[in-house]
């Protein structure tokens, strides 16, 4: 039986590795409270705030689809593509508490026809690509069963 590969994040520090309830790791300005993803470390995006101090914060794990698409052509490097290429869905998702939209791939078994603006989705971890020893993980969106569309 082949040994299980090490599961490692494809990018360090962008999300928690909690298998059941992973979350994106954003930042929150300690002065004005503005959220950012990926994390801000040295300037606040709010033009009226001069703070450079941020706390790491887990972003909402669920949100509503702002819009969606599917990549029908293989993206160029540095994307590591499956061989042969398989089209994959992408969604931009509105997080209510943070009032921001965050992009992510949608898990592979979801077709464009299954998505709609306003549909509820949750964050999961999934394999982005693999090499001989590692499985590289990334965040993806997955529709919540029965999650309504009220756009």
């Amino acid at each position, binding site marked *: 039986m082949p040994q299980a590969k090490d599961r490692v994040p494809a*990018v360090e520090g962008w999300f928690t590795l909690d298998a059941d309830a992973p979350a994106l790791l954003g930042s929150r300005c300690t002065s004005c409270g503005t959220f950012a993803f*990926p994390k801000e470390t040295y300037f606040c*995006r709010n033009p009226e705030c001069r703070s450079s101090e941020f706390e790491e914060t887990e972003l909402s794990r669920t949100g509503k689809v*702002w819009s969606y*698409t599917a990549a029908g052509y293989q993206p160029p*490097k540095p994307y590591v593509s499956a061989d042969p290429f398989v089209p994959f869905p*992408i969604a931009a998702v509105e997080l209510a508490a943070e009032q921001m939209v965050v992009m992510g791939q949608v898990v592979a078994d979801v077709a464009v026809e299954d998505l709609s603006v306003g549909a509820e989705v949750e964050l999961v971890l999934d394999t982005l690509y693999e090499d001989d020893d590692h499985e590289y993980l990334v965040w993806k969106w997955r529709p919540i069963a029965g999650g309504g569309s009220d756009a």
Partner: protein
Amino acid sequence: MPDDKRVAVLGAGMHPWGKWGRNFVEYGLAAAGDALDDAGIAWTDVQYVSGADTIRNGYPGFIAGATFAQALGWTGARVSSSYAACASGAQAVSNARAQILAGLCDVALVVGADTTPKGFFAPVGGDRKDDPDWLRFHLLGATNPTYFALYARRRMELFGATEEDFAAVKVKNARHGLENPYARYRKEVTTEEVLASPMVADPLRLLEICATSDGGAALVLTSMEFARRHAGTEDLVTIDGVSTITPRFPQTVIEMPNFSTDSSATASTPGPTFKQSVALAAYEEAGIGPEDVDLAEVYDLSSALELDWYEDIGLCKEGEAERLLRDGDTTVGGRVPVNPSGGLSCFGEAIPAQAIAQVCELVWQLRGQATGRQVEGAKVGITANQGLFGHGSSIIVAR
């Protein structure tokens, strides 16, 4: 409009768009030569060279102004080189205009040219994990058409746009560009052909996404006083507004190459979107509004994106772009033709040349020289475009 707020366009020139892979300098030189001839001005009389940079052609591309100046023959002219992604050409125009309006020179040459690789635009090479442009390809496989597709799908769900509407934009632009000698694609297409082309980024198909092209464009800009003296007339084509604005926080529409929008959680109610602000700033400078516009050249990176622009430049209200298209308002012969040149649909994108080429088309339209695609009686035109990482680009040209 007072002379200290506008500059004259004495010359416009372009090298045809295509895909030859030759040195970008060659295309820029051809365009510059045509623009100078069109203006009746010798290169040796140009006091300021404003280059729009290309980042895919090595060092000469990063210092395009000097590269073109050397290729034309060093004259000691002052120089600048600008990079603002797709908005580079507007920055180059803006720099030249500022020099003229400040009284620092009378005659400026603006040049942009590009040679592009085949296929999707990919990020600059290397392993660059602090560059969002690199990371969005690596972590999401999000190409430029991914973002265009998000906007297109949202139009469908919010405003009832159909795939046939998007295809109709392509059909219109293909017809517009048929007789444009500078267009790369000069072939009519049918709705059926568009809808039968491969899906690139659902719902956008291959024929609806602009190609990457080689090409070059140039303008000769002068002070009003110089233009009157040189041309011996008051009847001049002028640039009355140039918008090179950045977004305002919070930016609530997802933009290339970002992973997220700004957060509105702590901000006051957002005002106009970035794309709306781009044109508003140009209108404000020119002292006119959308109702004064006879034609527009907008950045149709995708067929659907052209519809967004109708609303963003104020030709109609949000959600009404499809009706404008279906009624033929934006077709040559209609109320306010959009992309009479054929747009990116017929040209493909030669990044630093594109915003300059938009102005070239308006100049020819306003002079009545746009054979086969002429917007009759056009007096005022607007260009609109947006460069990666928050670069607005909108120019108002009037006669």
